[in-house]
Each structure stands twice: as structure tokens, then as C-alpha cells.
């Protein structure tokens, strides 16, 4: 299972950057938005392709090779 983590950086001007790492789907927004909401005004948002992945995405891969 991927590591789920939030990295928060508060710069010396007070601006806050919240990065979610390994948290997929809606859960990602729940945590990040809750923090943003208690702090103030959201100024920008970037989402990577990971956001659009399903929260459950286990996949088994079977390779079959011909052995001669």
C-alpha cells in the first residue's frame, strides 16, 4: 500500500502550501481542504493525474510466456 502523507509548508510571509502525497480520490481533497478552510483564502490548486485514479485499484498482472 502506498504511503499516505501530507506535507505542509508555511513560508516566512505566512503563505501555506499543502501537498498531499499518496492520498487518492476524494479523501485527498477532504484533508487538504479542511486545513485550507480553517486557515483562510485558497489562492491556487494543482492536481496531478493521481487524483483521478480510483481509491481501490489493486491489480494483479500475470505474465505467461512460452517456454521452448
Amino acid at each position, binding site marked *: 500500500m502506498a504511503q499516505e502523507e*501530507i506535507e505542509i509548508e508555511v513560508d516566512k510571509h505566512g503563505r501555506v502550501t499543502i501537498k*498531499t502525497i499518496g492520498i487518492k480520490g476524494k479523501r485527498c481533497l477532504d484533508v487538504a481542504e479542511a486545513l485550507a478552510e480553517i486557515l483562510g483564502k485558497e489562492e491556487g490548486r494543482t492536481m*496531478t493525474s493521481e487524483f483521478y485514479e480510483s481509491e481501490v485499484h489493486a491489480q494483479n498482472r500475470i505474465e505467461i510466456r512460452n517456454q521452448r
Partner: protein
Amino acid sequence: MSTVLVVAPIVIANWPMITAAVTAAIATSGFTSVQHHASNIAAQMKSKTRETIEVDDSEVLTDTFGTDEAIVVERDGITATFKRDSKGALQICMEGESVSKSQLRAIGEDLLGRVTQQYAYHRIVSELTNRGLTIVDEEMTENESVKIRVRNW
């Protein structure tokens, strides 16, 4: 990584919270706290340059406290007085000799940034604690940012 949010904090706090943020901020910016005597300051202000910074995105909650509190900090003859303005917002009055208004504003805005940083830090830690989340790492970076890493939920 899946989401990055950038947030500009709005300082909404009662006076003890603001005092705590200012106290923590001056520790990293070379200012020291000085006793606030309104009459003395008024007498000294005559020959000084003054610049007022209105923090529009802020609200000083009065709670059971009055509205006339002030925190005065000083560095190299420049004083910064934090107080609540008539609209209930935070205001910083900068004063100093042999210094221009723009220099006072720059110093005041730098100080305000550090106060906002401390305020945001304490709000974040408080919220994370309330949610039962654990801070696994915390550091001050080279560019004086505070970095917090949270896990376990």
C-alpha cells in the same frame, strides 16, 4: 503527489493568540518586546517617521478582553505597535527615526509575515491534533519556512 493547495491565511484570533504569535515571531526577527506606556510613546512620536499597516484580512476577536490592548516590539530604534483598529482588524503602527516610510513599511510587512507564519503554524498544529493526526517530522528550512509532515490516519 495528488494535490497542492496554496492558502493565504486570514488572521482571526483573540488577543492572547495574537500575543503568542507576535512573541514567537519576534524571536526569529531580532525584535524584543517593550513595555507599552501610551503617554511616553505619544511624547516620543513627535520627531519620528510613522507608517501604519492595516491588515485587511484579519479580525481581532474581543472575547472577554477589552479592545485597547497593544503589543509593542522594538529593534534598532524602530518600534512596531500591534493593536486592534476601529473596524476590529489588526493594525501595525511602525515608528522610527532616520528611516523612510517605505523602509518602515517593508520592515513592518516582514514582521507581519512572520506573525502570520506563527499564527498559521499554531492553527495547523491545533487542527491536526484535534483530528488525531500525527506530526512525524517538523523542520525549519534554509529559507525560514516551517515544514510539517503528517501521517497515520
